[in-house]
């Protein structure tokens, strides 16, 4: 149950990044910023206030969203690799703050002993280990439905336009920068929601949650799972976690083997896990004409 809960939290984290990477082709190298911020904010609120967990989780995500507007405003000044570097810079900035600001963040020790405080109104089913699993499941489901509606909406159509040809989208009369700020903000907010779930789940928040390594890992989850599919990154996160758990039983150098798996996916299955599943399914049913879904990541 613990592993499953963690997989769902990471799934939410990876799915939030997919809005940027898969649907808008905005590659963030610093998505851990949202996740780590959410975890720290939620952990701090649970340790230093008497608010119940059900309040601190959304508050942390919203707080991250407010800050993300500014981050998105700065990052979208740039495009391409420069954009990615700016996202990385912000994540490293947060990392440095978390490391140095010991009185609030606990420095290199992080925040420990974060409680799953029940309530409000005596609502305590989610505070148990199994109950928390269902809470995470519900949040992920709601976030998935929200994102799915988003990418299919007129707003989502504009995001796809930006992905395929931003100059043309601009020429059609869309303020593409504003759309990019909106999607980056949303993506970070959902990432922070995942982080806010992680803190009471694990009982701690440390600087690893803000480190660039995690930003790279979540990007790998999105790509291995299948960018631009929402469900793919969730599977990618579960796959990553499973492989990590299994391989680390045998070898310290599990990351090396995961690297090989990643390379294999990029070369042989660029549409990722969901692309493989979906492709097999399509061949069996063959209801959809080939050209409707045949282009990688078109949906």
């Amino acid at each position, binding site marked *: 149950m613990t592993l499953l809960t963690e997989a769902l939290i990471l799934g939410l984290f990876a799915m939030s990044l997919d809005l940027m990477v898969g649907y808008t082709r905005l590659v963030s190298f610093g998505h851990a910023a949202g996740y780590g911020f959410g975890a720290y904010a939620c952990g701090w609120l649970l340790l230093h206030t008497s608010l119940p967990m059900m309040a601190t989780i959304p508050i942390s995500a919203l707080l991250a969203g407010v800050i993300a507007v500014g981050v998105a405003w700065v990052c979208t000044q740039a495009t391409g690799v420069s954009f990615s570097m700016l996202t990385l810079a912000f994540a490293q900035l947060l990392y440095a703050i978390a490391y140095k600001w010991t009185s609030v963040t606990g420095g290199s020790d992080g925040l420990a002993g974060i409680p799953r405080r029940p309530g409000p109104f005596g609502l305590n089913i989610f505070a148990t280990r199994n109950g928390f699993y269902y809470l995470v499941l519900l949040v992920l489901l709601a976030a998935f439905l929200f994102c799915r509606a988003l990418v*299919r909406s*007129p*707003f989502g159509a504009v995001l796809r336009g930006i992905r395929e040809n931003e100059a043309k989208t601009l020429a059609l*009369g869309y303020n593409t920068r504003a759309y990019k700020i909106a999607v980056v903000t949303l993506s970070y907010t959902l990432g922070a929601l995942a982080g806010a779930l992680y803190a009471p789940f694990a009982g701690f928040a440390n600087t690893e949650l803000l480190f660039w390594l995690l930003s790279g890992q979540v990007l790998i989850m999105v790509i291995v799972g299948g960018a631009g599919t929402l469900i793919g990154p969730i599977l990618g996160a579960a796959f990553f976690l499973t492989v990590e758990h299994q391989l680390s039983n045998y070898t310290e150098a599990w990351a090396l083997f995961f690297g090989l798996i990643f390379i294999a996916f990029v070369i042989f299955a660029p549409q990722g896990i969901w692309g493989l599943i979906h492709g097999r399914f399509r061949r069996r049913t063959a209801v959809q004409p080939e050209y409707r879904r045949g282009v990688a990541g078109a949906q």
Partner: protein
Amino acid sequence: MALLELNELTRRFGGLVAVDHVSMRVEEGEVRAVIGPNGAGKSTLFNLITGLLKPSQGSISFAGKDIGGLSIPRICQRGIARTFQLTALFPQMTARENVRLAAQAREHRRWQFYGGSGVFSAAGRRADIALERLGVSAVADRPAGLLSHGDRRLLEVAMALSQEPSLLLLDEPTQGLSVEETGQAVEVLSGLLAEGNMSVLLVEHDMGVVFRLAQRITVLHRGAVIADGPPDVVRQDTGVQTAYLGGFA
């Protein structure tokens, strides 16, 4: 009052004057061609009008309001649509999705983040009409990237048309088309332009197409206007002949 009025419009790139004190008027419902040899400043002129470039000097007024220096989307929202010299589409979307995204840009609720992308039925209708009028309905459900070059050119015009612009800028609509395809494209375009409910500014190298479609012609040479008038007058102009037409007429 003219729909589009350029007044002493100038754009410099370093020492090069790409557009040199150009003044021009496009009346409502008028179809005007801008011709000139390569490097005459035609594309720069389009980029100035649509906001891709800022004027160095001079003014651009559209429907009585100054639009010089406005952002690209703002200018587009005022009712100016364009096509590009190199076809610009969304290759992985179907032709219909391409046009629908263009049509949706004129909706007030274009930020709506729920409901399917077809939620704006009015935009969908405008898209279907535009596809129909450009004769590309048959390929509406195919990804734009897989269409023939000719269909892609027409699709881009359909996208512009679906925005119901009051001024349409066509940058070499028949560029790269075969003789047969050019004939079909001109057929479709002349049908559209004959309705006269929008003004058109047309850049085109094929003089046959220009004389067939345009009511007035402006000739640019090294960034400056060297002739302006109805096709017959421009055709006879000796300065134009030496600069550009090279004995075509």
